[in-house]
């Protein structure tokens, strides 16, 4: 029922066994990499979580005042982190609102701070790729130190990352102008990319693999350099870029990383399997486990994760102890009070849909708490900033105003005053978020995040005509 891909040739049990889940759980591996051993050398880390389609804002919003607030039912699973939390209520995804790429296309603007321009990437909407890097790129390049990856990107299939639906409605992160980053959907591939050569069970074998890869890259380098000189001069930029990428790849592949414990390699999955919406919960756990270890091993200091947005299914919720639902897209539309289908939903149908979305957000909060933060060593969490945002607020309105954002700042992070619920602007509790006024532009938050990560010279991110400077209230 409702399965997007029709032939899953694998069982849930096999998946769980592959991850070592459901059997013994994933107790934190008792290790401390060299870099992690001394608190003084702990690098700052950034985790960006994107969950699409907004939520039911009335069930998301905390109650109470700035410093004495009670988390909503949606965010309740994160209550252990409330003293380190900043709930941001009133941030506008302004670049989405200004440009042609609204609604879902706010995914392309939320971390870049620039409009989605006209173009041919999405022929139906005639939209192109954003023309600026997202903050993960900006920050990752600057804070990576010796990390193998400037940033790494995981996702459970956000549908519009590849294939005919590809577009800035699914890709949130950008390496530069019109340079979308496809998140890694397949945990096995993520594992291979991240940890190969790191395991070092047998240092001699690792050394041989490194030497082999270097020799292949040297050969390819030679061929590229030859082709570069033989081919017309106008083609050279393309080959120069390729040569640059090979150089970085060589560093990535040949670097000896501090020994650290790596998780069990997940099974190989087919493309259909990793794109099965009914297994979002399983893949979320697999990806979070890899993310934790990648951060612990200092393979990257910027970790990004995207959950499926508009068109996922909610069947998996049954496995997680919630009421299942059908298409997330339908649910989001049904919940709405100002954008409805051919047949106007009844109040009861709306109430159910809103509850489904709230449940989903509650499940996500639970995943962040139990599968990510709780399982990271406290001193790593202490030096990590996690930002969780959606490109829109109430899913039904598709409004990019007043998007829900939660930040959790580690105890040693020290950039913001935490334990706060910050509100801007005015909203009507039931609805029209398009008419929301008085919000703060996301661009200010992007600057604040850059500065918090040590990029104190950054005063504007994305379109500087939207705003410059940080979100002062965070200090």
């Amino acid at each position, binding site marked *: 029922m409702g399965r997007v891909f029709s032939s899953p040739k694998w069982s849930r049990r096999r998946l769980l066994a592959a991850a070592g889940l459901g059997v013994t759980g994933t107790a934190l591996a008792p290790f401390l990499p060299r870099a992690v051993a001394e608190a003084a050398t702990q690098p700052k880390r950034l985790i960006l979580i994107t969950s699409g389609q907004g939520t039911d804002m009335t069930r998301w919003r905390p109650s109470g005042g700035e410093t004495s607030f009670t988390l909503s039912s949606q965010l309740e699973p994160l209550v252990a982190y409330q003293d380190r939390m900043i709930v941001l209520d009133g941030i506008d995804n302004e670049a989405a609102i200004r440009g042609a790429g609204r609604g879902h296309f706010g995914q392309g603007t939320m971390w870049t701070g620039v409009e989605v321009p*006209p173009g041919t990437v999405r022929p139906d909407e005639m939209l192109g790729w954003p023309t600026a890097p997202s903050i993960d790129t900006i920050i990752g390049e600057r804070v990576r130190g010796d990390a193998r990856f400037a940033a790494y990107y995981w996702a459970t299939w956000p549908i519009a990352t590849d294939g005919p639906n*590809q577009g800035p409605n699914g890709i949130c992160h950008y390496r530069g102008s019109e*340079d979308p980053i496809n998140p890694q959907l397949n945990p096995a591939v993520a594992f291979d*990319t991240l940890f190969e050569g790191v395991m070092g069970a047998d240092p001699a074998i690792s050394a041989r693999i490194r030497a082999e890869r270097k020799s292949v890259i040297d050969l390819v380098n030679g*061929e590229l350099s030859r082709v570069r000189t033989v081919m017309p001069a106008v083609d050279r930029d393309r080959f120069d870029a390729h040569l640059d990428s090979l150089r970085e*790849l060589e560093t990535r592949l040949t670097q000896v990383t501090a020994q650290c414990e790596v998780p069990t390699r997940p099974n190989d999955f087919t493309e259909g399997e990793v794109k099965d919406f009914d297994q979002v919960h399983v893949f979320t756990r697999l990806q979070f486990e890899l993310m934790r270890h990648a951060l612990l091993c200092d393979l990257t200091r910027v970790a990004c994760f995207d959950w499926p947005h508009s068109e996922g299914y909610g069947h998996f919720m049954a496995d997680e102890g919630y009421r299942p639902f059908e298409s997330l897209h*339908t649910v989001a539309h049904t919940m709405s009070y100002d954008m*409805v289908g051919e047949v106007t939903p009844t109040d009861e149908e709306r109430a159910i849909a809103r509850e489904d979305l709230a449940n989903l957000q509650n499940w996500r909060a639970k995943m962040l708490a139990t599968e990510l933060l709780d399982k990271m060593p406290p001193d790593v969490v202490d030096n990590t900033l996690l930002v969780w945002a959606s490109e829109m607020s109430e899913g039904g309105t598709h409004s990019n105003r007043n998007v829900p954002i939660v930040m959790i700042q580690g105890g040693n992070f020290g950039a913001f005053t935490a334990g706060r619920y910050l509100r801007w602007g005015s909203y009507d509790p039931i609805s029209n978020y398009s008419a929301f006024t008085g919000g703060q532009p996301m661009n200010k938050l992007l600057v604040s995040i850059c500065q918090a990560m040590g990029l104190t010279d950054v005063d504007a991110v994305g379109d500087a005509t939207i705003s410059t400077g940080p979100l002062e209230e965070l200090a």
Partner: protein
Amino acid sequence: MRRISLAFALGWIGSCYSGLELGGGAGGDEAAGTAGATEAVADSGDSGGDADVAVSPSEVARITRAQYQRTIAAIFGDAIAGVVDFGKLPADGKIGSFASNAGLNVNVDSADAYRMVAEEIGTAAGAQAGALLGCAESDACVTAFVSAYGRRIYRRALSDAELDVFVQFWTSNRESASQADAMRMVVTAMLQTPDFLYLLEKGAEEDDADVRRLTGFELGARLSFFLWGQAPDDALLDAAAAGRLDDEAGLGDEVRRLLADARADETLVRFHTSWLGIDGLETAVVDPEQFPQFEDLRDDMAEETRRFVLHVFRQDDAQLATLFGADYSFASAELAAFYGAGVAGQGDDGEIALEASQRRGLLTHASYLTTHARSPERAPIYRGRSLLVDVFCNQLPPPDGVDTTIDFDSSASARQQIEDATSGPACAGCHSLINPLGYLFENYDAIGRWRTMDGTWPVEAEATILGTDIDGTYANAPQLLERLASSGAAEACVSRQWLRFALARPEGAEDEAAIAAAAAAAGGDMLKLVDAITHSDTFRHRRLPSE
């Protein structure tokens, strides 16, 4: 043709005018280096080579994921290709409706992805090292292997220096490695070289020419990736090496051979499913509560289109009029039942006769109708857009700064509500062109089932279309589709789409001659159209982009 029809439309639809781009290219910013259709044709005759040859500029581009995968299967066999996860390859970009990597750099993640896939293929090849070598290992044997496989991978004969690079690589690795490991390393390296990953087109002319006739090997590669979606086979490489692709007759022989071969089937299907967006069916999201039948029919719908296209090209007359207007199709028993009264009769092998007042041709396949419905209420807009853009090759500006939300309710039919929402000055310019084309398909619900009621409202499918060269009032889609192939604009558009697919780049002003000539030569026969494209100047030359 296309521009004439558009200009006609613009004559009295003012508000669509200001934003409309008359340029033919759908390449977008990445292809900014290539000419748009509005660029003057005349200013190109100023440098050496075949400067007066009509061809627009192209940038060096990589092969696509599908081409990579099919090439590996062709060169190394299914046993090796079968164990490789090609899903790891970097995602393709797009030109118009078609996969293309024009204008895209290899970033470090793409380079790493190519590395991983090459290692998988290398490992699988290593396990069959003896069989691949095919002789007792010796310098001569290794050289013969590198020469033969290198030619398939590079799509040309390797120079002595290039041979030496790989033979040396084998030899030095072999000092400390097994035969399998030496094979693994050589294959892994070859598959990461630019000669494999890119379509390198240096051309046959001297270095200062802007327009270059492709060498035989380069033309062979273009031909093979176009018609087969994979690298040339040995016979095509032999023809290229012998210079047989340099003359019309020799080229024609190879084009006929390739087109007749079963390896072209995949391309015929891929062209149509990409062009018309039907490749989106696999991931189309349909509300299972509203359309519980859909999930079980999804694969059947795709199969209908596949069988129909192949039948039109392989068994029938390959006429555009047949593609658009055929009174037959192919359906599983379930899909035929779903079509209901639209099926007039059923043959043994799944062929169905269509009740022509309900269905005819490709554009009434449930696959197409579903992909372009997107939502039950908005279907006329998306279907109309597809007709206008995909079939008539008109370009539309984005609905810039306009709130495109329509608050559908039960007060009127969806058609009426679309009409009301898009009749304002900001919308009508384009929607007066889009909507009528979409309304003609109102007899099909969001998954392509025939209907006479839209909820509680009788379906109104009759509409008067504008902005085409077959303007007029039609009762519904089948009536339009009966005439569609007689539209010169549609005929030229199909030619444009095929050229775009063949070149995997946006077309420019100097490709217009090839588009028009191919359409004229074809006389509606799509196989002749493909043949004509391969003989065109634009297909056989490369113009360098200006720096």
